[in-house]
């Protein structure tokens, strides 16, 4: 059965009645607020300001830049959800709030299509593109690509293909990888902005996951490592969703 609001709400009620949430009244309200918003308007964005006002009683002139209550609580809520699912593995749906966002995703588990075995997952990673004309920026992208490939390859569930997309398609051996990971990088001074897309190649070719990452480059290697680790974490979570089933409500 595909996910629907009733299944998500039933799961939410169950989670909120657990010991981990029972005494955490504000965190429970935070979770219910973002789940309700996502169910009512799936394409909506949820702002830090809105949560501050609706859940934490902040006034309409409150400035999230100087009052980090929502960011503090979002980090705690993500950790609480992780802990909850360690204690109580979900049976039908799992709620995640990806880092950097307040919109939850609902991941169907258990009753989806037959799970792929981990080694079935293959991902094609062409070199990340620099959108500037400075050759050093492409060097940064190449180094970052290497770092991401290195981290992904440590996950035994994944087969990472590093040749260029064009070379892969020309090869035409009939074995299409499951996913294509593409990223482009823009740079303004020390600030970089990376836009990442994970495209599902075996289905409709739709974007399966995307995110924007920002960083201030003070140490090139450290920045590459940190970005690569963030990307690895996000992809690991996204691909784990695939392994356990698919959602029609993300």
């Amino acid at each position, binding site marked *: 059965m595909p996910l629907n609001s009733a299944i998500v709400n039933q799961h939410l009620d169950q989670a909120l009645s657990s010991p981990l949430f029972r*005494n955490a009244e504000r965190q429970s309200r935070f979770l219910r607020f973002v789940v309700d918003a996502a169910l009512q308007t799936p394409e909506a964005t949820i702002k830090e300001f809105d949560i501050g006002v609706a859940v934490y009683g902040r006034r309409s002139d409150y400035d999230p830049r100087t009052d*980090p209550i929502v960011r503090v609580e979002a980090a705690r809520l993500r950790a609480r959800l992780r802990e909850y699912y360690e204690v109580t593995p979900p049976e039908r749906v799992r709620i995640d709030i990806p880092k950097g966002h307040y919109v939850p995703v609902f991941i169907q588990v258990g009753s989806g299509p037959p799970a792929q075995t981990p080694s079935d997952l293959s991902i094609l990673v062409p070199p990340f593109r620099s959108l500037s004309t400075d050759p050093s920026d492409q060097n940064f992208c190449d180094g970052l690509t290497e770092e991401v490939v290195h981290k992904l390859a440590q996950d035994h569930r994944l087969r990472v293909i590093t040749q260029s997309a064009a070379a892969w398609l020309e090869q035409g051996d009939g074995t299409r990888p499951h996913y294509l990971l593409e990223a482009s990088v823009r740079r303004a001074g020390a600030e970089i902005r990376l836009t990442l897309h994970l495209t599902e190649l075996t289905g409709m070719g739709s974007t399966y996951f995307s995110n924007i990452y920002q960083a201030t480059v003070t140490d090139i290697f450290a920045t590459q490592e940190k970005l690569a680790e963030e990307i690895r974490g996000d992809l690991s979570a996204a691909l784990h969703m695939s392994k356990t089933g698919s959602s029609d409500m993300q």
Partner: protein
Amino acid sequence: MVRQSADMDSITIRHLRESIALLPAGDPGPAHEFYRRLFELAPEVRSLFKPEIGPQAKKFSDMLGWVIANLEHPDELQSQMRALGARHKGYGVQTDQYAPVGSALIWMFQRTLGDRFTPEMEEAWLEAYAFLSLEAERGSREGPPQS
């Protein structure tokens, strides 16, 4: 018992250490600023502390130093935070009161360091505080760790 992983990578640890190193050494000002902000955000917790906040501010500064010194020892952090949480329960601390503490902590860095407190440093402290505060909550629920 399920353990919560600290999961702090080397970059996060570096940001935590760099931010602490930027605080003026031996200056009790930031810790006093932390408590001033905490009591502003959660006036109900003021009665949990003695009227003279100086000694408590010193304890808070020492605790930050202890956290930094033990970032590579999550078992030690976990054990001590659970013990702290168990003591907090005895003082009547509620789960929701960990939120203003975290908020005051970030605010202390913002106020003291200004632009030198980078978004990466804030992210590192959010992650660290989530781990530490949830361990304290667990101590409050389950009691101190058995030695």
